[in-house]
């Protein structure tokens, strides 16, 4: 089953990357961009298992490795089969 973990800088944590990209977009004339935050995305192919179990597993993996809980938060999505 396919899953996706999105890891973003926590609210309030400085995001120099997002800020720089937003500036670049503005200077290219994309003024419609009001805010931009930059994070990571992991696309994961997981062995089949019950959804609840998969979700628990993904949270565990995120907390342990994929994200840095001190400065990042994460969201999990599981593809419908």
């Amino acid at each position, binding site marked *: 089953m396919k899953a996706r973990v999105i890891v973003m*800088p926590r609210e*309030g*944590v*400085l*995001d*120099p990357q997002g800020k*720089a990209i937003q*500036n670049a977009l503005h200077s290219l004339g994309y003024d419609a961009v009001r805010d931009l935050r930059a994070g990571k995305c992991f696309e994961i192919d997981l062995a089949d298992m019950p959804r609840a179990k998969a979700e628990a597993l993904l949270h565990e993996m995120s907390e342990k490795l994929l994200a*840095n809980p*001190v*400065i990042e938060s994460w969201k999990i999505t599981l593809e419908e089969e």
Partner: protein
Amino acid sequence: MTHLASSSEITPEVVARHGLSPAEYERILQILGRAPNLVELGIFSVMWSEHCSYKSSRVHLRKFPTKGPRVLQGPGENAGVLDIGDGFAVVFKMESHNHPSFIEPYQGAATGVGGILRDVFTMGARPIASLDSLRFGRLDDPRQRHLVDGVVRGIGGYGNSFGCPTVGGETAFHPCYDGNILVNAFNLGLLRADRIFRAVAAGVGNPVIYVGSRTGRDGIHGATMASEEFSETSEEKRPTVQVGDPFTEKLLLEACLEVMKGDLIVGIQDMGAAGLTSSSLEMASRGGVGIEIDLSRVPLREEGMTPYEIMLSESQERMLIVARAGRERDVEAIFRKWDLQVEVVGRVTDDGLLRLLHAGKVVGEIPVKPLAEEAPVYERPMTRPAWQDEIQALDPDGIPVPEDLGRTLVDLIGSPGLASKAWVYRQYDSVVRSNTLEGPGGDAAVIRIKDTRKAIALSVDCNHRYCYLDPRLGAALAVAEAARNVSCAGALPLAITDCLNFGNPERPEIMWQFAECVEGIAEACRALDTPVVSGNVSFYNETKGRGIFPTPIVAMVGLIEDATAFAAPFFRSEGDLVALLGEAPGELGASEYLAALHGIERGRPAPLDWAREKAVQAACRAGIAARLFRSAHDCADGGFAVALAECCVGGPEAIIGAEVELPRGSRADALLFGEAPSRIIVSFDPSDRERAERIAREAGAPFEVIGRVGGDRLRIGDWIDLPIGEIRGAWREGLSRALREGG
């Protein structure tokens, strides 16, 4: 001033949460003549924290020699300044970022580098060389490996992007750092000796200008956090972690240097720990003036920030400038050119008050002078630990001499502490700025000074085990080793900066260790004529009542008059003679060998004879200046045998063997692995033997030719005879293997 008297919020709990003692709070009441409001309490709290006020260390630090003919600026400013002649000066300082690095290793280390860079370019210098001194716990713990990885990435990530080379450092491991790693960052910058900028506010009416990044809720109370022990709850208490932005810092550097070229500014101060609070107060206090700041004009990153948050934020990459009245536009134009925030936020006043406005109201008003001058100073009680005698006792007779001393050498040189640190420093740009004559890997880094014949040599050192077993001698040995390393590059040691990392100063044993180490450094600096020009103290490196070993890190700056004459740390030519400057007395106490192979951390470090130490270093420098010595390398951790092996395998490419004899006298393991100071292994062409002997004699240094460079084996007497490749393999792979596999 009714608007300031809303002090019902200041309960004893609030005072305690700000880390202020009841007595300290009393003093605040006296200074203000009323109760503080929350903003003011926050300001006192950070300014009087250990980190900012040095309240426990101040009385001791006065013992350091801080003056000398070359010292243009001693302790008290953002960094120390030394005259190196030809119209140039170097600015340098070292600072700790231990606690933040433990919580978030990448950002903690990165912002540590950012902070020290700002300290240096605040003074008008362009940073040209960084060093990093690192201590971690046991590598069999995955958490420690994660910390190593993050810290090294963070130092590289910031320094590399900023464009200042990281040219050396040290990396050591010990269980005492399991709960408190040490990350000490050093930087040195170059400027014209007549263009030093200072952090001072002057000229009533002059504008106060905020430049750099916007202010967010980063690290509020970082300074008080650095002044407390770790506990279970510090995980929750932790503030928003500061994230470094090296790109903005680089822009800030270029913009600041540009502003300093014209006659536009009076003073400038970086916003380090305690941000706007400490920068404004320190500038006002040095200038004997007042400052008024309108907090509504401070550029903010987040909405709804309170005056309290704005004053205590530790957002990175910001500076405060006092400009000349009328030159605001010029300052603004330069910072705008570099795409940075620039905002006139206040002005210099004549009333001696720090006055804070927000939304048209006065939200804080503190007399500057008393806040600085009446800051608490403690003579904390000290006691020599009861166990000190016990750990200094060592009975060598109970320790067996290993059968296979070759095996012992390979094991030692392959242990993470002694193995090559290339895994670390290959992640750092060590060549940018085109000055690196000798990068990491040798005894000292050597940085040329363009437009002169000169070069600067740098080394950072401390043996924490020595300092634990004998704090005073251990600290003196750290200075001696740093000087010796610099002398091995042919440089005359000029001055030091230090970073004193200790446990909880409220414990009398820790305070004793601290006082002893300060005495040791002071004694060494007097003996070597190398004043202390800047430094930093980090207390509370303690978790659940377990403190680190006393770890006073010393960075020595030396000068080479003719940069074309300097020696490599490694053997270079087959057939060269090998000689030992100094003697091999064979002492086992406090050695890495005892610790790593026998699990014994006892005894005392071998004593220092200053006359001997100075003679050995002088002889080494003279031999290099005369272009006699092709290589010079001191004996440090692991003793003579490890140093000799490093001479063989440490070079960037060719490896080369050697055969030497050592005079017998004491037991073999002590001769080979004992760590007596004041010893340097040199090599030179056989035809230069008499000149070399004469140079040593004139300097008063013991000198003995002990063997010859060549072949593909390392042979020491009849104790060790190994293929050089085997030593090289163990030395090269030791650290990366431990990081991969643990232990």
